């Protein structure tokens, strides 16, 4: 089923939507205005001639610094052999500006969108209006920023922590070994007892994530 047929069927149920066919080499692709996304998706799912029952994936592409910055991509498929024109695939695209990165959720139409949209929110920072549970999914809850955005730093510049080189005098070296031995007598005292087992500054830091 080609893009023109899908558009003509869609026009019947939602005549006022401006649908734009995009060029893609692999499957029909439609650009849908954000305001009418839910209507179009509803028709795609429930219109008997379309019957796109499978939302295979939801993702987003960050085109920073270009505008509109984000493209949210929906990969649909119709896999029921009884449906018209099956099997068929369709890609939906919603373009949103960087300053207002939000789209309505489609998780009520396809329950599989629930986690997929959470992942997009987590990694690209698109807000899905009306989503039942829009929390981070892959990154920790207290993570700052959205890693798959193009302005997210790839390698965060954190000052390198340099450990003090371990320099021991022969006496300290011997004393260190002595101190680690299991003793039955009284504890050692004096210089040898104060030699740290680990050089100062070599403790691993648990600070992670971007500055």
């Amino acid at each position, binding site marked *: 089923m080609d893009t023109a047929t899908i558009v003509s069927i869609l026009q019947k149920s939602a005549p006022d939507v401006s649908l734009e066919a995009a060029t*893609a*080499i*692999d*499957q029909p692709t439609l650009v849908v205005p954000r305001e009418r996304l839910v209507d179009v998706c509803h028709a795609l799912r429930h219109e008997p001639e379309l019957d796109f*029952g*499978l*939302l*295979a*994936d939801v*993702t987003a*592409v*960050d085109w920073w610094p270009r505008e509109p910055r984000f493209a949210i*991509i929906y*990969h649909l498929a119709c*896999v*029921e*052999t009884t449906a018209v024109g*099956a*099997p068929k*695939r369709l*890609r939906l695209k919603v373009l949103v500006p960087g300053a207002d990165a939000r789209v309505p959720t489609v998780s009520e139409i*396809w*329950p*599989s969108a*629930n*986690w*997929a949209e959470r*992942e997009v929110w987590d*990694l690209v920072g698109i807000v899905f209006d009306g989503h039942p549970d829009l929390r*981070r*999914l*892959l*990154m*920790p809850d207290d993570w700052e920023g959205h*890693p*798959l955005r193009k302005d*997210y730093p*790839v390698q965060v510049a954190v000052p390198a922590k340099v450990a003090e080189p371990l320099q021991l005098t022969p006496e300290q070296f011997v004393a260190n070994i002595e101190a680690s031995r299991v003793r039955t007598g009284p504890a050692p005292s004096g210089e040898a007892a104060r030699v740290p087992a680990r050089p100062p500054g070599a403790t691993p830091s648990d600070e992670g994530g971007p500055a």
Partner: protein
Amino acid sequence: MPELRTQTMTVNMGPQHPSTHGVLRLVLELDGEIVVSASTTIGYLHTGIEKTAEQKKWQQVIPLVERMDYLSAQSNSFGFALSVEKLLGIEVPERVRWIRVLLAELQRINSHLVWLATHGLEIGAVSVMLYCFRERELLLNVNEMIAGFRMFPSYIRIGGLREDLPAGFHDAVRAFLDRFPAKLDEYEDLLTQNEIWIRRTRDVGRLSKEEALALALVGPIARAAGLPYDVRKAFPYSGYETFEFDVPAGTRGDVYDRYLVRMEEMRQSVRICRQALERITPAGAYDIQDFRIVPPPKDRVYTEMEALIQHFLLYSQGFTVPAGEVYVPVEGPRGEHGFYVVSDGTNRPWRIKARAPSFYACQALPPLIVGGLIADVIAVIGSTDVVMGDVDR
């Protein structure tokens, strides 16, 4: 007598639970033995492969994606290579297509063997685990033979294969294919009519066809529920339309049917492998021979200046891919698996996104286990065959 008061108990299962196939955390609310509610926490294996890939040249992405679904490495690289090849507008030679199909089917058997081994082990059929790993060893030997690497061969490349098949490849694969069907019968002898196995799996974790489709569980789980969708049949790639094989489907959509479907899939994979092996000539083209994309053969690199320059250019600058976007699904061992690849016309991907079947299987865990017994949680997780590296990427 005072009225007895009951309350639910919250149990934390994982992240390091041996039956969670990686690091998956489940918080279960139990009323006695019944699971009242469940919530899933994932992300422990998130390694940012999609972000890392944006910094790499196209060819360098292959080893990265192979580490996503680490039990079916070649299903990842197959999908990725197909997507990029479609963007490049190139067609690999027929021989390469057959070799890829053969490797993909061996990979499916390999992955299903690990699934059966761990699934059996978790339900209590410990000997099945040893039997499956015995045969898997042979498949890992095949991987070692073609690439020197047992888990992540990186043998499938954009534009073809890394190098030609080694001597003895046909014999090794044929020996495996001759041996394996009898071994499959052996596994089935242990399980299919086994009273304990049936009682642990029959009517456990049931899922209807409609639910499977709504939750995007296309693959063995949906087929066990009676949705005979297989990417190899519906959207053929790499010449699958020329192979004869059947797509098994169940009716009840329970753990037992998923077991039956995967066992039959292994038999069908053997069938495809035999056909593919027939078609693969011992020597021949193993890539597209377009030295803008694949490196020239080593003997020419060592003897010809032009080839050396081309080799050097390819490994220092890579190649550019025309701007565009493409999504080519393949049928991985866990279902529809594919890569959405976006290029801006440079030598690095602008964005890649894996359609990870385990991700959706993991999303569907709470509806599958709520209402069942806590002992069945293990059986259900095993039957969905989630690989956490694929879930978290």
